[in-house]
């Protein structure tokens, strides 16, 4: 497979695809880990669907859809988290309201814009090979910022995710950290939407974490294995999709599922 990858790298668009894929595969499971701990996995799908409002709006008003997706997903993420923290409305109810509202708005923007349908498909199912030179720069800068921030704050984010009450009791500004976390999730989703698509976003952020959790390790090793599964799936998925002429996002998801099934079987064998 290594030789195949070198052959593919003769094409500029594939180099960009690999670079974007590697960045997304590093940051997506990191954010997914904390969402899983919060029992908030479905938020990924909700935010991914809502970010389509930003994509449709950007295509309609002709500015970069990555910024539109980022603006909407960060805003919606912070709003959803605030509603969740009020504790007088169930989290899944909040997500259902936001998801249907987001899709309704997307549909309206979609119907207002003639000819944005083809572009929209790229964001629904992902189109990692169409990432442009200017977009890749954004991927690198934002990806590095997310990586460094999560690395430095991972223990604080872990505490807030599994026991927010203790974080409050010990004097942490949980509102600030939650807002920062939702900002990072929003940025990650807006980058991943072009790579994997809104409809398959949950797979990239959640399946590697679910697979790694089967192995029975603590926080650091679970994070490490999540990234290994995600990175391997993305690199293999892009390579196979190139040679088999299949949609890359779909092949990436199948690779992730392969890891999940293997880890479940591994757990059953050694439990």
């Amino acid at each position, binding site marked *: 497979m290594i030789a195949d990858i070198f052959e593919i790298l003769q094409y500029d668009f594939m180099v960009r695809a690999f670079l974007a894929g590697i960045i997304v595969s590093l940051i997506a499971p990191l954010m997914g880990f904390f969402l899983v*701990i919060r029992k908030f996995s479905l938020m990924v799908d909700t935010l991914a669907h809502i970010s389509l409002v930003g994509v449709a709006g950007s295509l309609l008003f002709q500015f970069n859809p990555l910024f539109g997706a980022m603006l909407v997903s960060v805003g919606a993420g912070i709003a959803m988290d605030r509603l969740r923290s009020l504790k007088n409305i169930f989290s899944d109810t909040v997500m259902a309201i936001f998801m249907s509202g987001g899709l309704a708005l997307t549909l309206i923007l979609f119907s207002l814009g003639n000819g944005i349908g083809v572009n929209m498909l790229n964001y629904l199912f992902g189109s990692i090979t169409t990432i442009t030179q200017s977009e890749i720069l954004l991927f690198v800068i934002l990806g590095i910022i997310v990586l460094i921030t999560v690395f*430095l704050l991972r223990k604080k984010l872990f505490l807030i995710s599994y026991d927010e009450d203790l974080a409050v*009791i*010990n004097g*942490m500004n949980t509102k600030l950290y939650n807002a920062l976390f939702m900002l990072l999730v929003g940025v990650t989703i807006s980058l991943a939407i072009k790579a994997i698509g809104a409809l398959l976003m949950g797979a990239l952020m959640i399946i590697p974490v679910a697979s790694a959790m089967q192995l*029975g390790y603590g926080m650091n090793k679970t994070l490490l294995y999540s990234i290994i599964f995600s990175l391997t799936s993305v690199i293999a998925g892009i390579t196979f999709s190139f040679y088999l002429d299949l949609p890359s996002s779909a092949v990436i998801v199948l690779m992730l599922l392969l890891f999940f099934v293997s880890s479940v079987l591994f757990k059953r064998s050694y439990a």
Partner: protein
Amino acid sequence: MKNNVIISIKNLSFSYNSNKVLDDINIDIERGAYLGLIGPNGGGKSTLLKIILGLLKPDSGRVEFAGGVNPRCSDDCRIGYVPQRISQDYQDLPATVFDIVESGLVAKEEIFKLQKNRNEVINDAIKLAGLKGMENKLIGELSGGQRQKAFVARALASHPQILILDEPFVGVDLSSQDEFYKFLRKLNIEKGLTIIFVSHDIDIISAQAKQIIALNKKIVYTGQAVKVNEKELVDNIYGQKFTHIHHDR
């Protein structure tokens, strides 16, 4: 505030919407107390704990701590907290005993300036909880009693003066409960830790605690634990006539 008092609750009232759950509560908790808080469901036990912990604000009245009104800024009155439903809620958490105990320190740490001897502090807390050698075990692999101890170790890592445990024995078998109570009592006697625990089980409370506060929206009883099993008092706590069937402790 008297010298030997570590928490003083004054004229405290709290309502959820129009439903009053705490009505003019006045309590002084002495330093080194080994205190059980008991009452029926909806009687205000967990609400009172949340107010003491600063998670809820009272409608009226106040909680004062030795050394100030804010427990978060006072070394003299630092609070350690062990949440309820540990056995159920953290079964699948991808965290080792070390991870859990370490998380008791991270809230107060600066991002670029970690506590110098933090590993030593964490390992000391693990050792104190009797979990030495289990540092790398997953929290879900521990028995109910060991899991409770891991969360007590998390609280101990920040060197608290007060330890608050909310329904610590839900889902824990009886033999583990006994061992855990001995461990708590040892912390209370040897470390001088003020310990407050909540339970709805009147037999556990009466057998284990030294002092009792019985709460049913108002204070129904404060005093020695041994008397709390008296039938008239039980009827008062729960607000109606009961046939009280005891279980062995």
